[in-house]
């Protein structure tokens, strides 16, 4: 392995882990659920993506795994992350009716009920 590749890998790893960290950090730092919801997308796109690319490169160079199989992981993440985010947002919206913006057409918000026990904040 040459230094060039090594440094490239190190950079990828650094970027990746940085964004993963920032993603989690935003979970802790931000004050509102919808703000926090933006965090994991960073982790699952650029964060994990960089690590995966690093992994592809590392295994290809090391000969342990010639195929760029990690791309499949990215593919799956790119399909599943929106599903998760969409549903979490929907769930949160149903709990926070007040924050829900009115429909653009002016009709009232859909009466989405929330599960009352889910709103419970622990004592």
């Amino acid at each position, binding site marked *: 392995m040459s230094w060039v*590749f*090594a*440094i490239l890998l190190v950079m990828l790893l650094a970027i990746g*882990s*940085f964004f993963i960290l920032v993603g989690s950090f935003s979970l*802790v730092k931000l004050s509102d659920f919808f703000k926090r919801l933006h965090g994991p997308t960073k*982790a699952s796109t650029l964060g994990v993506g960089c690590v995966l690319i690093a992994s592809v490169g590392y295994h290809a160079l090391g000969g342990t795994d010639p195929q760029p199989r990690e791309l499949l*992981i990215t593919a799956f993440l790119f399909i599943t992350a929106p599903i998760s985010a969409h549903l979490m947002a929907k769930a949160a919206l149903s709990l926070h009716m007040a924050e829900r913006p009115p429909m653009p057409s002016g009709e009232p918000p859909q009466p989405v009920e929330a599960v009352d026990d889910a709103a419970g904040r622990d004592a």
Partner: protein
Amino acid sequence: MTPQTLVVYAVIGSMHVVGVAMLLALYRLVRGPSVPDRILALDTLYVCAIAQLMLFGMYLGTAVYFEAALIIAMLGFVGTVVLSKYVLRRDVVE
């Protein structure tokens, strides 16, 4: 120091960083306050786990953890989906 060891150090470092990220997610998981927060935290933990797996595979120079990472990427969202659906409707399968 060889390029190899440099990368290994970087991998180890990254693993620790991701570990810290998991701790941060843990904070949200146990603190809440709302249920979607916890769901989000669990989801984040899963995402971090993928990174950990890949990093550990690099550290060992083996591909045996690929399947596990693939599974998390492919199905880790199931928990999130089901939990969110529960919050939305209680009836997970309608």
